[in-house]
């Protein structure tokens, strides 16, 4: 994931989380506020109910009192106090009185509890309302109360009041009341979204899942539960509000994310473009272009970083140049030292031989010819050594560019091995066992067969020199990650880590008579073939050189 992508994701995440948190906080606070309002409204509605209920009770009591105190009712009571009263004359009376007084229920009840006339159930005359004759109740003091009223098909709730009309020893009970039904509750005028329901047992009224519920028990004269007043408040407004908030939050999130995308795109572009330029510059430097520069002019940290990068590459170039110069000087010094060393060795015998010839001429003229002959032979030998030394240096200096052609590496290996096979079995030298492990059908490589053959020869010679006590020389070919590999292993004494690190340095040798140019030439050839050379060695376990060349 790129830095820009991470930055974008971070922007979006931060904005989405921020909007989500704000939305959640607003929703929660709104819900709490709504619940407080709902509770307040419910309490107000219940208070309104109690107020209207009390008013209705007083109204019912007043109306029943009006009927009971009417002269016609008193006359009725007087008629009923006569022997063998004729109740049938009054069987329809309650309906008229109830209609006149606006009562839903009205019954005229004789002293023994028999219904004389019933407005709500006219056909029920003659039946008993025994509860009204309960001697323990003072109906004059008893206000209106809630009770069930028997009807043919139902038993609605009513607010009832009882008054007694006395005529002599006889009593006429007037039981009147009003229906407590949904119409009554409809008069409560609940605020929008609220409902008032009356539950009287049986199936519970349907209450939507989004409604809040408050229940108020309604009890009768003897504190018996008659019904439950249910006040419901719709949470729809709240839910719509919350939905609206969430919707707004989502829209804000979406808008914010889009805005964040654009902003983050622009911002990250401003932030990451210099970083990308830095990265590109670093890649160029890594690729060897030390002259790479990052063109960033901002004064922020990125600009400072870019300037530091540019300074770094500048200093790297300077250091490289200084290093090259130092190495060049060191190389020249080493060359001079090696030349001096190499040339001094043959020159010293030459000097001794010439001084011997001069001394023999002066001191022993008779032996001069003999000395001369011996000295001349020595001089020629040493001069040949000098010539050889100079030839080697000349060869190293004159390493030509390779003439690449497609070759079979196994063939080159076999030819090189053939050149040195006789040397491996030379008398007077402990035997070295050659081993060829060539992988057939290798892809061809682009190489100069002469130079690569010479490089292989150097490695073989090196291996032979490394095994003065004999051993096994193994040359192996194979594939390695799309390249063709050639390995040359010996079973000699091996090298230390330090020796391995310096092994390819020109003029560095671990041998007593080596020039230190053999492996340098090998590395030079491999490098000219765009290949790689590596060495693995452990003291006492031999050394392996590995060359990888790109397959064609």
């Amino acid at each position, binding site marked *: 994931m790129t830095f820009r992508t991470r930055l974008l994701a971070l922007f979006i995440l931060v904005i989405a989380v921020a909007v989500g948190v704000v939305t959640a906080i607003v929703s929660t606070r709104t819900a709490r506020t709504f619940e407080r309002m709902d509770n307040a409204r419910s309490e107000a509605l219940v208070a309104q109910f109690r107020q209207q209920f009390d008013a209705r009770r007083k109204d019912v009591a007043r109306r029943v009192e009006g009927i009971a105190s009417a002269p016609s009712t008193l006359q009725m009571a007087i008629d009923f106090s006569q022997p063998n009263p004729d*109740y*049938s*004359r009054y*069987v*329809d009376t309650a309906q008229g009185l109830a209609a006149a007084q606006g009562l839903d229920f009205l019954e005229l009840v004789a002293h023994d509890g028999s219904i004389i006339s019933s407005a709500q*159930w*006219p*056909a*029920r*005359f*003659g*039946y008993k309302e025994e509860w009204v004759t309960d001697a323990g109740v003072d109906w004059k003091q008893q206000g209106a109360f809630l009770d069930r009223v028997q009807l*043919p*098909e139902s038993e609605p709730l009513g607010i009832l009041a009882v008054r007694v009309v006395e005529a002599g020893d006889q009593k006429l009970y007037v039981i009147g009341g009003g229906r407590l039904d949904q119409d009554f509750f409809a008069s409560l005028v609940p605020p929008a979204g609220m409902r008032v329901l009356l539950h009287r047992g049986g199936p519970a009224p349907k209450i939507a899942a989004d409604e809040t519920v408050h229940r108020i028990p309604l009890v009768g004269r003897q504190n018996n539960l008659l019904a439950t007043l249910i006040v419901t408040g719709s949470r729809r407004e709240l839910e719509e509000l919350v939905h609206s908030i969430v919707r707004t939050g989502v829209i804000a999130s979406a808008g914010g994310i889009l805005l964040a995308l654009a902003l983050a795109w622009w911002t990250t572009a401003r932030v990451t473009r210099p970083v990308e330029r830095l990265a590109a510059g670093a890649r160029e430097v890594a690729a060897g272009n030390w002259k790479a520069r990052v063109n960033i002019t901002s004064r922020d940290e990125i600009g400072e970083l870019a300037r530091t990068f540019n300074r770094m590459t500048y200093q790297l170039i300077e250091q490289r140049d200084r290093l090259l110069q130092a190495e060049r000087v060191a190389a020249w010094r080493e060359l001079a030292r090696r030349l001096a060393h190499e040339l001094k060795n043959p020159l010293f015998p030459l000097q001794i031989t010439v001084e011997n010839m001069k001394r023999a001429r002066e001191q022993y003229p008779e032996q001069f010819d003999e000395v001369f002959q011996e000295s001349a032979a020595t001089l020629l030998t040493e001069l040949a050594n000098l010539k050889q030394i100079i030839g080697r240096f000349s060869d190293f200096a004159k390493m030509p560019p390779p003439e690449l052609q497609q070759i079979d590496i196994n063939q080159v290996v076999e030819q090189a091995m053939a050149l040195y096979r006789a040397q491996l079995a030379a008398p007077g030298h402990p035997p070295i066992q050659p081993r060829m492990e060539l992988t057939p059908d290798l892809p061809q490589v682009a190489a100069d067969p002469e130079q690569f053959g010479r490089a292989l020869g150097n490695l073989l010679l090196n291996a032979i020199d490394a095994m003065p006590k004999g051993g096994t020389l193994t040359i192996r070919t194979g594939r390695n990650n799309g390249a063709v590999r050639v390995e040359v292993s010996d079973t000699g004494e091996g090298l230390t880590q330090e020796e391995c690190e310096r092994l390819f340095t020109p003029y560095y040798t671990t041998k007593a008579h080596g020039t230190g140019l053999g492996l340098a030439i090998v590395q030079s050839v491999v490098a000219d073939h765009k290949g790689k050379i590596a060495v693995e060695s452990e003291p006492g376990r031999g050394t392996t050189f590995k060359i990888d060349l790109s397959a064609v």
Partner: protein
Amino acid sequence: MRPIGCRYLAVISVLAALATALAATRPRYGGVLRVEMRERAASIDGVARIGSLVFERLVRIDHDGHPQPALAVSWQADAEQTRWEFRLRPGVKFHDGYPLTGATAGGALQRLLGSGATVGVAGDVVVVKSDRAMPGLLTELSRPSASIAARGPDGQLVGTGPFRVTRFDADRHVSLAAFDEHWNGRPFVDGVEIEMGRSTRDQFVDLQVGKADLIELAPNEMRAAADRGARIWTSAPVELLALVFGPGRGADNARLREALALSIDRAAIHNVLLQRQGVATGALLPQWLSGYAFLFPASMDLPRARQLVAEVPPGDRTLPLAYDPTDAQARILAERIAVNARDAGINLQVTNQARGELRLVRARVNSLDGALVLAEMAAAFGLGQVRVPAGQTRPDLLYSAERGLLDGHRVVPLFHLPDTCGVGSRVRLWQRPGLGRLGSLQLADLWIEASP
């Protein structure tokens, strides 16, 4: 002198007072009688009470139940009562002026009797012959359906009765005028205006405010009418109020039917809702007609009713009780019956739908022939055939037939109720009662008191 003078003066005063009283009670011609009724008639012969003023039969039944001459002045039958001869009253005219002839009367009788009898005419004698005895023929001929009518020049039915039709608005209003050429003399009143379709409440109000002279009264209005000075005419108990079971799951349960019959407190209904008018009954025929109605029990037996209901599947204990919504008292009666039934464990759902498993119905006694009435009621209630022929007067056979109809409690008789009329203060009647035994209006001898 002075005592004698005083005595003369007193005698003269008494005579004057008597003369004034006689003048007040003496019939007078003139005036229009205003009648209101609940029934509606689509045709002039559609309502028996109106028809009896316009049309006449060969025979009429007097208040004591005896046949009396009407359009026939005499009749005789052979010993087997298979041949009857009726001599027509001479000088009888239809309202359009045409005389009543033997052919007209014979044709009417033939239509009435159908193929069961042969009607022949010999001058002013109409002969009725049949293969079977016809003991109830006189009763049959006294019924409204035996009225003698003819088609007038305008195609309308005309009769020979004391009043002729001058205007007829179907279902609303009938205007009758006195028929001057009636064989029994012109009625005292010049005419009769009949308003149809008036509720009993409106009728009662109209009587009290003087807008009506003659109205129908519901039983529960009688006491109030009497308290307000109205005179009451009542007939014999001629209307049966009964519960009739139709087909249905609950109604087909004999135990439920019997339980319902035993649960009804007829006494309370009679005392309160009917204000003691009529009689509670368990019989189809009224006591005055059959003489044995008291043998059918009409008392409540709630424990037995509950016991029977306990044997009825709970799902069968509910059934609708239908009543006639045009019957002012039917609803409260039905509701009271439902209250009684509820005590027994039967749930009656009172409804004003015309049809139902259980109906509260009224049936009239339209004849003095008990067998004929039984047959009509059996047909009306869907009880099947009656095993006694019309005219049969043997009480044991009638009782057996009625018992057969009532067994199974498909019909639960409740009350026999009289026809009741409230009469305004202007109306005077001399000899005969204004209502016949079967409830027919008899207005020929009625006159209207002159306004002071």
